[in-house]
């Protein structure tokens, strides 16, 4: 199986570059204006971060029709709670954590719906997780990975996806998921062992 060979050679997570200070300044200014009720400022924040949200939601959910809903809910939630953002320059990180939270809610809902037998949204979504431009072997590999993740607990799935698909640093994942570093490590280790176990390379976790 293609996945078996490549799953143990996870792509190296990218280094944490963070937002540039100019972007942070722009965000800070837009957030301040949005707090005053400026719709233009909110639109500016949307334009600047919608791709981030779409990408994050797409990778966390594995594609599917709920991605748009997650993005929409995340922005609505973010704008409604803008007053709670203490450091406007950190909008991007703060907003990302909202996307992760909303996505977690949707993933849990999907699992519930799947269990109740009212639509296996996750299975339907898996086919659309990889972009058409990706090589067929990578597409197949991704579908395989997401199919396996689909059976894992939501928090484990999120931690693994953020690490190996989104390619974030452990500290960033801990911040996004509001958990400790050790919890993040434990979840990722669990997912790795589970995937290796399913590939027949290790005993059950």
């Amino acid at each position, binding site marked *: 199986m293609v996945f078996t060979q490549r799953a143990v050679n996870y792509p190296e997570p990218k280094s944490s570059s963070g937002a540039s200070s100019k972007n942070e300044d722009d965000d800070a200014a837009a957030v301040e204006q949005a707090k005053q009720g400026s*719709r233009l400022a909110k639109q500016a924040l949307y334009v600047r971060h919608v*791709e981030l949200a779409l*990408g994050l939601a*797409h990778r966390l959910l594995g594609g599917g029709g709920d991605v748009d809903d997650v993005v*929409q809910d995340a922005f609505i939630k973010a*704008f409604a709670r803008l007053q709670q953002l203490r450091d406007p320059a950190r909008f991007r990180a703060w907003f990302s954590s909202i996307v992760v939270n909303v996505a977690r809610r949707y993933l849990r809902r999907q699992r519930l719906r799947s269990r109740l037998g009212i*639509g296996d949204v996750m299975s339907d979504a898996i086919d659309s997780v990889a*972009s058409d431009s990706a*090589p067929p072997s990578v597409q197949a590999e991704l579908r395989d990975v997401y199919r396996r993740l689909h059976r894992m607990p939501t928090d484990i799935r999120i931690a693994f996806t953020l690490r190996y698909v989104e*390619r974030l640093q452990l500290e960033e994942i801990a911040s996004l998921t509001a958990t400790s570093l050790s919890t993040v490590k434990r979840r990722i280790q669990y997912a790795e062992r589970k995937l290796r176990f399913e590939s027949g390379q290790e005993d059950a976790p």
Partner: protein
Amino acid sequence: MNWRDATKPDVSRARREAIWGAVETSLTAAPPPPRRWRWLLLTSGLLTGVATAAVVKRSWWVPRPLAGDIAEVQSPVPARRGPRVPELVEVPTLDTATGAPALPESVAVERSGVASSAVASSTPVDDLFVRASEFRRQGHPELAARLFAGFLRDHRGDPRAGLAAFQLGLLYADELGSNTAALKHFKAAWKLSPEAVWREELAARFVLTYDRLGRVESCRRTRERYTRDYPNGVHTERLGTLCHLSSP
């Protein structure tokens, strides 16, 4: 190519604008009514057939199969429509004749394709089975089940309550994949319609459902009852193949 690069989502302008449209609508909409009231609105829309509820400020969940029939509307212009909502839709304000509560500006009602064909603005009880069947045919077993469940709840004393329960059981067994729920409704139908012409079918359904649930003893017991009550029953042969212990 790494996994991240291979999972680039569609970030087309149309998609971004569609999402922004929904977000902006929620920013400009009037404060939503209390959650419970909103839910009742949706429920009443689906159950009584006032219309398919369409809400500008979307913050609730509807089952995915229904999403295609629901449009978000900023009266009188649909802001976002489900794939099955026709292009030309009438977007009336809520008809006061239906007795529904007046809607705030943030909420509008749309008569979508499904709504107009299957849910009239006034819904006499007599039409229920026709409308439910139509929903089922259109691929909306959840909606059909809601209609029957609403009928059962509101018209328990109606002579057709048993049939509604039976239909509900069939929907759960054959379309919604819940044999436990199906069994519950079959039991209700059994109790409600002691003289129904479809009782033989119902008796056979008990056997089938118990078999699917792996309840061998109950399966055998109901099969014996079926063969005793309907010695020449049309399902005798088929039922004879059921009620075996599943292999360990």
